């Protein structure tokens, strides 16, 4: 990657070449290059929303697909997501100013007793990469933490993650509490984590089990479009 012949001057590329190059740089997890690319596009008067969707979301879609297909693994995806975050940090305030359309909002967290947040972080970053607003509650969340967060943040989606046999049943505790409070149907509940499977997701009353971060994004988009259809119907 550091070969001289590979030295690319981003500002010398035309828009189309630059976006292609940003796809490549996201894939390689090159944060500084992504930040530079975002700034160049802003200088060229691209709308922040267009940079987000065409350059960043476009690039992360490729990363997501290769992760889903077993070509990339967690370390590469984390680096890609980290690069994307660099670009997002520049765009976020601008997006808020320009009132860009939103995909949806998600509150996500790893359940009580579980420290593992690799999968949850991936989902969080891939969701942001897909244009969702994400509120990340971190690890070790008791049911109260989830309830407080959804009350305050009013998300469309609640995501829960667990990596241990000893913590996965806790997802049911959270969902049962939502049912008791009569708010279960106000949210789309997505669950994930290594020991889970589709049947488990159904049995505990989640809307869907997501095998990996790429599937989580696809599933979230699907539920959001259903919701929009319902609203317009």
């Amino acid at each position, binding site marked *: *990657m550091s070969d001289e*012949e*590979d030295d*690319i001057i981003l500002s010398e590329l035309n828009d189309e*070449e630059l976006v*292609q*190059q940003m796809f*490549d*740089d996201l*894939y*390689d*997890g*090159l944060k500084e290059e992504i930040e530079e690319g975002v700034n160049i596009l802003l200088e060229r008067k691209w709308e922040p929303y267009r940079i987000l969707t065409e350059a960043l979301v476009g690039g992360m879609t*490729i990363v997501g697909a*290769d992760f889903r*297909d*077993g*070509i*990339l*693994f*967690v*370390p*590469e995806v*984390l*680096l890609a997501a*980290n690069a994307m975050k660099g670009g997002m940090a520049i765009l976020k305030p601008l997006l808020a100013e320009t009132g860009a359309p939103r995909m949806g909002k998600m509150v996500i967290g790893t*359940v*009580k*007793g*579980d*420290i*593992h*947040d*690799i999968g949850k972080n991936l989902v969080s970053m891939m969701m942001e990469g897909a244009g969702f607003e994400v509120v990340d509650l971190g*690890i*070790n969340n*008791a049911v109260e933490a989830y309830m407080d967060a959804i009350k305050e943040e009013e998300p469309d989606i609640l995501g829960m993650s667990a*990596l*241990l*046999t*000893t*913590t*996965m*049943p*806790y997802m*049911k*505790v959270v969902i049962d509490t939502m049912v008791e409070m009569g708010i279960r149907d106000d949210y789309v509940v997505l669950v994930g984590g*290594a*020991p*889970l*499977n589709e*049947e*488990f997701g159904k*049995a*505990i009353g989640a809307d869907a089990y997501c095998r990996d971060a790429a599937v989580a994004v696809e599933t979230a988009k699907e539920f959001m479009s259903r919701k929009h259809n319902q609203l317009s119907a």
Partner: protein
Amino acid sequence: MSNALSRALETRDWLLADGATGTNLFNMGLQSGDAPEFWNEIEPDKIRALYRGAVDAGSDLFLTNSFGANASRLKLHDAGHRAYEFSKLAAELGREVADASDRDIIVAGSVGPTGEIMGAAGTLSHESAVEMFEETAKGLMDGGADVLWVETISAPEEFRAAAEAFANINAPWCGTMSFDTAGRTMMGVTSADMVKLVDELPNAPVAFGANCGVGASDLLRTIKGFVAQGTETPIISKGNAGIPKYVDGHIHYDGTPELMADYAVLARDTGAKIIGGCCGTMPNHLKAMRAALEERPKGEMPSLELIAEKIGGFSSESDGTGDSAAAPARRSRRRRS
């Protein structure tokens, strides 16, 4: 280096390890989200019962209740400073149960992952990881463990850090990784990669292998992958008893004792020397496994087809090794001039 496990491996064709820890503790009343390691202190009888369950069912070796006994995991429960203490207690209880048996029982000190990410994309440094593992390892050895046993690891960096920690205290050890993503670990390690990783360590483990992951079939495919590399180090096979299901408020694994008996025999035929279960494997499974290993003669290396026929199909077509690694290569990036 002489230790109880190496000696047992010299005289036995196979050793039966234990089954699940979490699944068993749930059945004794552990609440989801609570750290099982506290029970070493407040419910020692239940931990003794857990160990005894494996020993009475015929296990030659069991793992201590210390999977989460590292500073990083215990921090969640405001007990980050108690890793040594909980590990030592876990091993002491183990030693007591093992010594009370009239058979030779090996106490393996379980060392679980830190749960943090190492390497380029991570936050945990090699030095901190070694320090954490060493603390747990010391507690286990001081409590009387025969051998250390790091398990459910997905990152090569973390495996190396654990090995270094064990070298620092000069303790014999075993290590298993979890291959749960289309035959690879979450971090992309294949069975062939792990053999290479193990061979390159300055302090070789007594045995290495795979635990947990997806189901018993996938696990045996991984064992085949180890054997294909021509490794001389004894191989460990600890597969889950099927797939977790949620039944009446509890997690239930759908693998029957009969299925696990078939799995145990297939694991031995594939080349594993230390055979046990992981999540969902209860004493009745272990009994069936022991009986099958004793009664059925050793057979030939099973084909993937035979494994699928006997205990079920695989979660993915390829496991990322050999000619079957049909997955397209990483795209070449930063290529334009």
